[in-house]
């Protein structure tokens, strides 16, 4: 164990003797109760880009007095790291996860957290709670709601005499008109949108990835029509490609490389700082007549590893931090990056979310938000994303590409259905 100055200060109320025994009995994570702070828990976070987040989560962990929680801040491929760590006992006790995936739940790698939600379940954003729920049990506590949306430069749109696009057709036209020798019309990510957009165009066409009863949700001609618009954007050379930083970073937009960019709500403070009032936000426009626009919402959740030596203590800690300590949840969501609190009661009270583009974003999340269903497994996502990339970049036929995706996805849905029975 590395003892940071912070933990030393944190345990300063204990006696020096307590500290010494704490060091002496250091055998990793299953230390005893020698310093009166309870068992040792390790908690993992992925690396957040916003300054101050790491200090904040360490501060929360230090304030917990029933266990000695050490925070690990993990840069790099976080999903791969946690997936591998969950196979062993030396992994985290408590960890945040962009999931958990259906296979992690079915494989018994995460602990059922349903009883933590007693009396507060209705206070959580239902859209992001749904993918954490399987078989009526809840497997992670949503920390904050993230969403993605379209940023546009008001001045550039006004110069070209355009209004924010209301339909996908309009988006294609607007992007073409805004493209000049120096500035591209739209940035959907360096891969042309296959990764960042994912299922969004399908939802904007009134379809879904997986239906509520577990069938393929885009076996429909409207899907091919929606995706062929993305090809049009690429063919018109309206898309910015190969930018030094990818879509999740607002740099390309604030540096004026593109007039519109698909990015996350987290980028809003940086955009606001750089451009002041000269920007607006929009949802992904409707891709079929009569359909509604769409924005993806999702949440990192806090989960407990089934291989933890202190499952109950870990659950208690998760309950304390992500259910009971609402002022920490508020601080985590709003003080560093820019996220919507996962608790409805907190989201309502958040002043910064009530005005300007932020208020628009919250409205999109509420009215047009969709979360990727739990049954949309990584294997399905890869098959779909590959096809989308071929449609956009190589001009592959959307109908035949989607037919083969539908075949693969329904095989994958059969697999997970069989496993649950």
């Amino acid at each position: 164990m590395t003892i940071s100055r912070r933990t030393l200060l944190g345990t300063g109320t204990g006696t020096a003797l307590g500290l010494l025994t704490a060091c002496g009995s250091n055998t990793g994570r299953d230390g005893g109760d020698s310093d009166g702070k309870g068992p040792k828990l390790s908690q993992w976070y992925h690396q957040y880009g916003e300054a101050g987040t790491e200090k904040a989560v360490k501060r929360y962990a230090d304030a917990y007095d029933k266990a000695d929680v050490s925070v690990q801040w993990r840069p790099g491929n976080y999903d791969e790291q946690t997936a591998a760590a969950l196979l062993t006992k030396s992994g985290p006790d408590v960890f945040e996860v962009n999931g958990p995936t259906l296979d992690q739940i079915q494989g018994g790698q995460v602990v059922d957290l349903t009883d933590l939600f007693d009396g507060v379940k209705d206070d959580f954003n239902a859209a992001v709670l749904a993918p954490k729920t399987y078989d009526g049990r809840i497997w992670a506590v949503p920390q904050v709601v993230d969403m993605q949306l379209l940023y546009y430069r008001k001045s550039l749109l006004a110069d070209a005499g355009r209004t924010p696009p209301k339909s996908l057709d309009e988006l294609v036209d607007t992007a073409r008109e805004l493209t000049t020798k120096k500035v591209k019309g739209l940035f959907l990510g360096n891969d042309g949108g296959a990764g960042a957009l994912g299922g969004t165009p399908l939802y904007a066409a009134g379809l879904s990835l997986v239906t509520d009863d577990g069938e393929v949700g885009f076996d429909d001609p409207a899907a091919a029509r929606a995706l062929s618009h993305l090809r049009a954007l690429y063919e018109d050379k309206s898309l910015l490609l190969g930018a030094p930083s990818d879509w999740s970073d607002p740099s390309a937009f604030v540096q004026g490389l593109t007039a519109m960019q698909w990015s996350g709500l987290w980028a809003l403070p940086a955009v606001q700082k750089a451009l002041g009032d000269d920007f607006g936000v929009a949802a992904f426009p409707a891709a079929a007549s009569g359909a509604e626009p769409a924005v993806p919402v999702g949440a990192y959740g806090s989960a407990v590893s089934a291989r933890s030596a202190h499952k109950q203590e870990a659950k208690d800690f998760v309950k304390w931090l992500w259910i009971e300590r609402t002022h920490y949840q508020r601080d985590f969501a709003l003080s560093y990056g820019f996220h919507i609190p996962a608790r409805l009661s907190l989201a309502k009270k958040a002043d910064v979310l009530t005005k300007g583009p932020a208020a628009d974003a919250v409205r999109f999340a509420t009215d047009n938000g969709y979360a990727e269903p739990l049954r949309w497994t990584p294997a399905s996502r890869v098959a779909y994303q590959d096809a989308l990339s071929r449609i956009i970049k190589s001009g592959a036929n959307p109908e035949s590409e989607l037919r083969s995706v539908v075949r693969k996805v329904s095989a994958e849905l059969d697999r997970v259905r069989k496993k649950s029975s």
Partner: protein
Amino acid sequence: MSAGAARRERLWRRLAGPQNRNLWFWVFVGPFALGLIVFTYVPLGWSVYLSFFDAHNTVSPSDFVGFDNYTSMLRNDAFTDSLWTFVVFTAFIVPTTFVLSLSLALMVNRMRRAQAFLRSVFFLPAACSYVVAALIWKMSIFNGVRFGLANTVLGWFGADQTAWLSTTDPPWYWLVIVTVRLWLQAGFYMILFLAGLQRISPTLYEAAAVDGARPGWQVLRHITLPQLRTTSVAVTLLLVINAFQAFDEFYNLLSDARGYPPYARPPLVYLYYTALGQGQNLGLGSAGAVLLALVIAVVTIGQARWFGLGRKAD
């Protein structure tokens, strides 16, 4: 001394060998052999074992599926495409690197001055990491915006900006992948060729000159290349092995937070995403790894036969 103790003593003598040779053999070889077993053979065997199970998110699976993983991997066009990617890449990069490093070696070898300097200059990139080089290629030389190096140069001639890594028609991404590997590798193989060249006896060239061989192509064809045969075989083998291991520059050039595009995806990258990505399908990934290992084994044996490796020198 009792009879039992004497027998034990004799047994120990026999086991330790004359002058304790067996003992010393194991002292020196043992740690290495142990490491090899623990870190190579056990994982290898485990991987073969996993390939017969439905092993999602587990390394101790219970759901035996026979050859299902193998059939689904062979029917999976993403995997077969990745094998093709790999064949095309190898077929291109091996001869290209070979010719380039041989030409560099021939040129540097003819220099009378500054030979040591040029040798170092060409060799230096070999000391650079694949990851770092790939990032420089991606971010500054071949980025898609107008201030990228390649686009700036093309801009002087009035060409439009090109998104090098995102353009599949024509497949510009190959230009990026191939140039980074050439830059990193050519110098290293140049050194191997230089060493080979310097071992060729000057008397051979003198004799050729006396016999009226024209300097240039004729000498190269009939003296230099035959004399370089052993070096050439070694270089080709190393190049093919390196091409098999292609991962670093592909991954760092083309992957992003949401995955990897469906083009220029060599098998190692594809299997990495299948087995170790969020999918964690270790059974399917292991089956792919075993198939890949079989392909590599066949190619290597074929190559060894072709070059007559292992045959006694005549």
